[in-house]
């Protein structure tokens, strides 16, 4: 069985790409050998994660100079790959990843500016599909507050953007931030990470069931 490549991308900074990428990779680790590729030239994830004596953390690798070579190399060694993209198209990294990935998850915060910038990702996905027609793309609503009318309205609004949106959402939970402070995923955060783990598991299951 080959490697399934997930990418986490959005041109809007601060929408939770790295957080989703790390926790998604940790969730996939439960299912098979997983590598987390940091395509951000600054290598934030590679510096941020803590592997000292932490069981279950995915292998984190900075993509380095040749992103496409790193993706091809990793795909031969791992069952799952998650690529964290930078918040820009200018470097060409996001475009490269979209042309090589199987699935792209686009985290979107419940705010109008994030919604508006999502349209740029739709264009990027359309462009990538000319080379990679099998690319599956989904919006993932992030930092959702169940009682917020805006969070709820985002679901319908994203449907008008041209790409499907997952029913599963990531809640606005302190566990993501506290785990990030420790350099670990919510899967290693014990009971405090339970609900966040449930969020990630729902996302993974929904993506797999969309096959």
């Amino acid at each position, binding site marked *: 069985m080959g490697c399934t490549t997930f990418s986490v991308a959005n041109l809007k900074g601060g929408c939770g790409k790295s957080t989703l990428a790390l926790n998604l990779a940790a969730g996939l680790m439960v299912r098979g050998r997983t590598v987390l590729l940091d395509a951000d030239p600054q290598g934030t994830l590679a510096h941020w994660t803590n592997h000292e004596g932490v069981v279950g953390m995915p292998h984190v690798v900075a993509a380095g100079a040749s992103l496409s070579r790193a993706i091809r190399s990793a795909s031969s060694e791992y069952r799952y790959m998650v690529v964290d993209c930078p918040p820009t198209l200018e470097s060409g990294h996001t475009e490269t990843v979209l042309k090589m990935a199987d699935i792209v998850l686009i985290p979107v915060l419940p705010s*109008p500016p994030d*919604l*508006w910038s*999502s*349209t*740029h990702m739709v264009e990027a996905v359309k462009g990538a599909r000319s080379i990679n027609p099998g690319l599956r793309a989904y919006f993932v609503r992030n930092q959702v507050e169940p009682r917020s*009318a*805006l969070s709820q*309205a*985002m679901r*319908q*609004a994203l449907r*008008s*953007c041209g790409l499907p949106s997952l029913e599963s959402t990531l809640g606005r939970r302190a566990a993501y931030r506290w785990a990030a402070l420790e350099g670990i995923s919510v899967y290693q955060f014990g009971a405090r990470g339970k609900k966040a783990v449930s969020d990630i598991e729902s996302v993974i299951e929904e993506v797999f069931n969309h096959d």
Partner: protein
Amino acid sequence: MTKLEDKLIASVKKSEQDTPDTNAGQEKTAASKPASKKKPASPNPKRVSKKPGRKTRATSKHGRAAVKKEQPDLHPERVWPD
């Protein structure tokens, strides 16, 4: 559909209309950008380019901007040499 959803969807459509195509914009900008018109360097940049003998507002008897009042001594403490 709620009013908020309608509003959000309308704002997305508006932002799609307002946002220019990035590539087209760049090409258009490059093509339509006029060649920079640099002023030729003056042969004597310190010289005020006025015709000789032409009265300025300051020297004209009838000029409204003629300076009539005395300039104050800005450095009263300075001792001027004989």
